[in-house]
């Protein structure tokens, strides 16, 4: 009789432990899922929206390509041309 009660108590403890583990896994899955949704769903983002911008490296490359310096020096003769507003 005692042996039967011991086996019954052991089974009850295993079932209890299994419930605790399953509950913890379910809670972790739920919390993880919520975090993933917040991270990836636009309706859940918490940072202020920013305008789309070209990456800084791209801007620097274009600036380097387009805005290159010319070479000027002191004048050596009467001007042959005039730079002015048009």
């Amino acid at each position, binding site marked *: 009789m005692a042996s039967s009660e011991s086996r019954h108590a052991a089974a009850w403890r295993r079932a209890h432990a299994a419930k605790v583990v399953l509950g913890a896994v379910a809670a972790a899955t739920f919390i993880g899922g919520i975090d993933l949704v917040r991270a990836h769903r636009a309706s859940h983002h918490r940072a202020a929206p920013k305008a789309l911008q070209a990456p800084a490296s791209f801007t620097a490359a274009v600036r380097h390509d387009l805005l290159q310096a*010319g070479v000027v020096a002191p*004048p050596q003769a009467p001007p*042959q041309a005039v730079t002015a507003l048009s």
Partner: protein
Amino acid sequence: MTTHRFRSMGCDLVVGGATDAEAAAVEALFHERDRMFSPFRADSELTAVNEADGPVLVSQLFADTLHVALEAETATGGLVTPGDVQVTGRLVRARGLDLNGVVKSLAADDALTLLSGDGFVSAGGDIASKAPLDVALPGGGAVRLVRGGIATSGTAKRGAHIVDPRTRRASTARWTHVTVSGATCVAADVAAKAAFLHGDDGPDWLDELGIAGRFLANRDVVVNRTWAACT
């Protein structure tokens, strides 16, 4: 040096050192660009794009010019902008597209390639040169353009006509003329417009790029460190 003068794009043009045939080719180039990019012509490609309800398949030259304008927008942080435009290859959708920021100076660079010898092309004061050229400056003085192009931007001639895209109003910069030397005429033109819009920060902004700039505020002349070191 022989010079050939004509008018196109609403400004005076001077071609120096060209043969008669080359001068004629340069004149034809500017008239072609004017027909294509004039906002005042009903038959220009620019007008067709601006008045279309949807995307328009543009010519390769138009697409290339727009590409340079968009590069200028990126390079200047949006200060020199063609406006709101959507581009997919040669399909362009836009309203109020404005390519004035690059068309004239780009045409000067392209026209320069038509000259077989040393010479220059001046489009309303935006100058591209194949050889060292002494250039008179706004407010007096001169500089030798050793290589590249030189351009002047400002407000003095037609009033406050440079709109700051950040405020959508005429710029309040104190400069009347900003003269910049670039590796090409279009580089000089874009840098001059952006430096003007940077206001008092314009000289330092050009210095960060290693570009020489000369700023005129009424009769006060300010040159940045790069210009001072060169001249």
